[in-house]
């Protein structure tokens, strides 16, 4: 704590500035939410509050399909990415070349989405071409569409995109975990898997679930890679873009965007609150420990 911080007003001003910046960043979002409740849609002079558009989402087949496909894409990505991140995090802890591992894992962060999407697209096309040629040579048409652009390539792109984030989140959570616990479990007769599942996992659960949530949000919100690697206009983001560029956004789109945003904000907000509660609980525990307990 800063007990002798001289300028209370300086502190408050800086706090205000910080909040101001965050609010400004969120302004466009709030605006979208604002519009989503307007009966008269975007740009109209009058404002009538309504939930009409939210209701319409569910009857708009295009929207529902889009949301469903995105959900499927995200879910599959999560299933692959989280174990991958976990295994890599464990590897990082024991490897002799931590620098190499980290550089490799964090490298996708520095590749902009379009470049990544474009490169992967060409990669898959080449792969596809190669396999088809190979198939022709061997005499089967079996290989023809293995690496065609579609769900598969989109998922690969999403995995590459989200892996660094999952890796970092899990690694940070594992920082708290003590190796002695696994050893103690092994010493009690547990196999490596049992030790992980009974002892390590319950303690890093929070990190793993956060990374799942985070991956879901990332996949939902990203546009370029999905559009490049899957094509079509049938996912959440691509549907919105198609509307933006063509007819302009329908009112339901505003509502849908807002809805997804609410959910995402709720998830992140609850993670923040959860860590808040948790850190306060840990603080209380630490304070209790510092006080003299009964003699042993």
């Amino acid at each position: 704590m800063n007990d002798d911080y001289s300028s209370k007003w300086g502190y408050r001003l800086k706090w205000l500035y910080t909040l101001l910046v965050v609010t400004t960043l969120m302004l466009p979002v709030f605006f979208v939410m604002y519009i989503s409740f307007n009966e008269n849609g975007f740009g109209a002079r009058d404002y009538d509050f309504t939930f009409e558009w939210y209701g319409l989402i569910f009857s708009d087949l295009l929207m529902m399909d889009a949301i469903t496909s995105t959900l499927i894409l995200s879910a599959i990505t999560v299933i692959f990415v989280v174990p991958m991140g976990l295994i890599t995090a464990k590897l990082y802890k024991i490897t002799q070349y931590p620098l190499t591992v980290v550089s490799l894992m964090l490298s996708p962060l520095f590749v902009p989405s379009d470049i990544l999407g474009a490169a992967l697209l060409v990669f898959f096309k080449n792969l596809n071409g190669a396999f088809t040629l190979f198939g022709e040579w061997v005499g089967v048409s079996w290989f023809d569409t293995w690496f065609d652009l579609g769900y598969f390539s989109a998922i690969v792109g999403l995995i590459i995109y989200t892996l660094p984030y999952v890796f970092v989140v899990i690694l940070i959570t594992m920082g708290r975990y003590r190796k002695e616990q696994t050893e103690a479990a092994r010493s009690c007769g547990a196999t490596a898997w049992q030790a992980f599942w009974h002892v390590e996992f319950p303690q890093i659960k929070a990190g793993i679930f956060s990374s799942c949530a985070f991956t879901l949000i990332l996949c939902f919100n990203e546009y370029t890679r999905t559009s490049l690697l899957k094509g079509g206009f049938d996912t959440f983001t691509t549907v919105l873009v198609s509307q933006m560029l063509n007819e302009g956004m329908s009112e339901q789109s505003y509502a849908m965007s807002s809805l997804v945003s609410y959910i995402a904000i709720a998830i992140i907000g609850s993670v923040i609150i959860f860590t808040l509660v948790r850190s306060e609980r840990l603080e209380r525990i630490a304070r209790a420990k510092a006080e003299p307990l009964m003699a042993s």
Partner: protein
Amino acid sequence: MFWMKPAFTLFAYENFFTSARVDNFLASMGHSSISVLIAFVIGFPIAVFVRRRVPQVAQHRVILLFILPFAVSEIIRIFALRPFLQRNGLVNDVLLKIGVINEPITAILFTPTGVIIGEVMSFLPFIVFSGFLAMEAVPKYVFEICEDLGAGPIRVFIDVIMPLAAPGIFAGSLFIFVNGLGVALLPNILGGPGAVNAGLIATQAISALDFPLAMAVSAIMMATLLGLLYIGHRLFNLTRILTPLS
């Protein structure tokens, strides 16, 4: 199905360098640099403030606040800037009302300014995060020593904070810079005709099925990135950033 015949050639690179695209590419580098600077000026002080003055337990929470914008899709965030920045948008409305200007400013949306604003808004949190992590390299007692020796805040910033936090700042700036260059949406939606960055060149090339060009642009981008990373590493020893992870 038709595909390209493999043949090794530098034609695509020639194509790129001799066309107007190079100028656009360089111009977009300029814009991205400006975005980085603005984001740094706005965002880094926040990181310093949170690290120094906010109690330890609350620090992470405050930083997490900056994740909130990411809850929303990037395209929505960028697209939603239009009603603010356009001719009859909110910003102009307000400015007109309070009488700062007499006519709506047209030179925001559909110009490089718009792109810069979009970049700053989209990537500011990253400077805050990397600044926050970078400040871990600056121990608290250093500030006390500086106060003791009578250094003013500017001196403290130049002599103490910058050198120690340099790797993290560099990494964050690089991230913004690279994404500014690479995300096609930004110039697409916010820039005007002719506003392009590498990402846009690449995606347009792809739609035109000119894969070699797209890949050439990507390769140039990656080369730029790796070059900058290397320079950064030599100057600041970027591996220092990784210490909080172990």
